[in-house]
């Protein structure tokens, strides 16, 4: 489900802006570290859970507005490179500010411990993450399918110029979508913090697997991202039982297979 939160943000940004946000993993990491800092000031996890992603979204908005916008007329590759530049900057800034050690974020008291379901013990916090996934997916679906704003965004992703001609403020929309996608990544970080501790490598660790999920699910589709992340998660979980050493390769092989057989991924649309 962590993968889903990241993948949904990535797929959203790709679907609308047609860019692969390389810095997404770093923004996720920023979310985790900000959660850590906020928890040090206000010992309530939920305050951090609320504010850290907003701060991440805000930072992302700044990046988009100041640095990405001037590049929209240029080739897509340059936008990608810019975002990679920010990956380097953010990763190092985090190391500079927090040091290289793991930062442990305590789980909120309400979610500590485990519950019994059907005779098995499940950690409450993990259940929280698992339930959060589909809730977010539903929220996203509602936003994009049912609201006016959602329709405008979809229009802008289909045809930027036509949407612009119709009076839709496309640049504003782009910034908003970039911020929203990064907000999702920030939530991912805030949620991952108590589970995995904040570390400087966490961005890189998860971002490439997220790419694989996004491709398997189909670029631009959240249901695809949801299904893709479930698929990858299960494959990894069962793979450990069968081929413990090479398990991490399997998602990439699945991705390659998808590319060969169904390049749009599970639910993707558009040409490849």
């Amino acid at each position, binding site marked *: 489900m962590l993968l889903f939160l990241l993948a949904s943000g990535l797929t959203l940004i*790709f679907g609308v802006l047609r860019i692969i946000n390389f810095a997404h993993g770093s923004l996720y990491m920023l979310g985790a570290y900000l959660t850590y800092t906020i928890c040090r000031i206000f010992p309530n996890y939920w305050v951090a859970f609320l504010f850290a992603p907003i701060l991440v979204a805000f930072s992302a908005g700044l990046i988009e507005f100041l640095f990405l916008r001037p590049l929209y007329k240029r080739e897509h*590759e340059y936008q990608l490179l810019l975002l990679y*530049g920010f990956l380097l900057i953010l990763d*190092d800034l985090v*190391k500079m500010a927090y040091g290289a050690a793991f930062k442990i974020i305590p789980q909120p008291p309400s979610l500590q411990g485990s519950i019994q379901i059907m005779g098995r013990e499940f950690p409450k916090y993990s259940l929280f993450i698992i339930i959060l996934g589909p809730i977010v997916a539903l929220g996203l679906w509602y936003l994009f399918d049912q609201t006016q704003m959602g329709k405008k965004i979809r229009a802008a992703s289909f045809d930027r110029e036509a949407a612009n001609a119709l009076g839709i403020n496309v640049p504003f929309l782009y910034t908003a979508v970039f911020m929203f996608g990064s907000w999702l990544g920030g939530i991912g970080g805030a949620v991952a913090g108590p589970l995995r501790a904040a570390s400087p490598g966490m961005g890189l660790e998860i971002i490439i697997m997220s790419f694989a999920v996004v*491709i398997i699910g189909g670029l631009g589709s959240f249901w695809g991202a949801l299904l893709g992340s479930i698929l990858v998660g299960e494959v990894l979980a069962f793979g450990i039982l069968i081929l413990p050493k090479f398990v991490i390769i399997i998602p*990439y092989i699945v991705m*390659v297979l998808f590319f060969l057989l169904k390049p749009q991924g599970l639910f993707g649309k558009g040409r490849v």
Partner: protein
Amino acid sequence: MSLIGVLAILLILPLFLPEYYIAIGIEIFVMALFALSFNLLFGYTGLLSFGHAAFFGTGAYACALTLKHISSSVFLGLLGGIILSSIVALIIGFFCVRFTRMYFVMLTVAFGELVYNIGHKWVSLTGGDDGLVGIPISPLRFLFLPPFNLVKLSNYYYFTFVCVGVSIFIIWRIVNSHFGYVLRAIHENSERVKFVGLEVRRHQLLSFTISGLFAGLAGALLTVFEGMVSPASLYFTVSAEPILMSILGGTRFFFGPIVGAALFIIIKDAIQTLTEFWMVWMGAILVMIVIFLPGGVVGFLHSRFLISFSKSRIR
């Protein structure tokens, strides 16, 4: 000609530079080749590969394995590196060139990750996390000349200089050939190339393979230099290095990546003497260059001071 002047300077440098700087020189040669191989694909053919470490690292490992298990002759080691990296490039390229732009990039990233994980986890072959150490390198015996000990730094400097120099010459001939011009055409407008009757995919695949070949050679040269190899050569961040170098130097000129590689390594070295946080500065430089100097340093020099690089200009 200024080129001969530069070459002459490079040749006499090891005579008076301390060992540390000779090592940096070797590193620059190797990375210049790596960056040049990348730019063949990016600047000329228009394909952004974010997984080039796969070929670099494969070349490195293949060379190491050849030297360890088959023969400690450096020529065979380099040959082993070239052969395996070309094969890997051919296979990966076959899948990647069927897709356009963003999808191509993602696929190269994923394949890069795949190769890294294979190299990292196949412990029996690659030594896993520890990599392979203690690789035997026997002195070079070329025809009737006396044996040339490659472990001595300045000797290896000249050896790398020759290898990289020959490679650069070959790449120069490739990009200025009919094939090279087709690649440039594909970059500008692949639709039109199809209408002229040329096979775009095949050219892209060939470009990809050649690029992988030289990247592998660079990796192999590094292995001989370091006497060891580790999964670090396959990691994602290594894939980014030729990209940063090419952008820094300029992707629109033949010599851009070479200049970029030199600048990158020198700047990184300088920053590292001041702080361990060199990435943030590199990232900032990348951002600045992408926004303000898209032609890189060489591009900037060309447009501003009209220093004539026209013969090496790509488009």
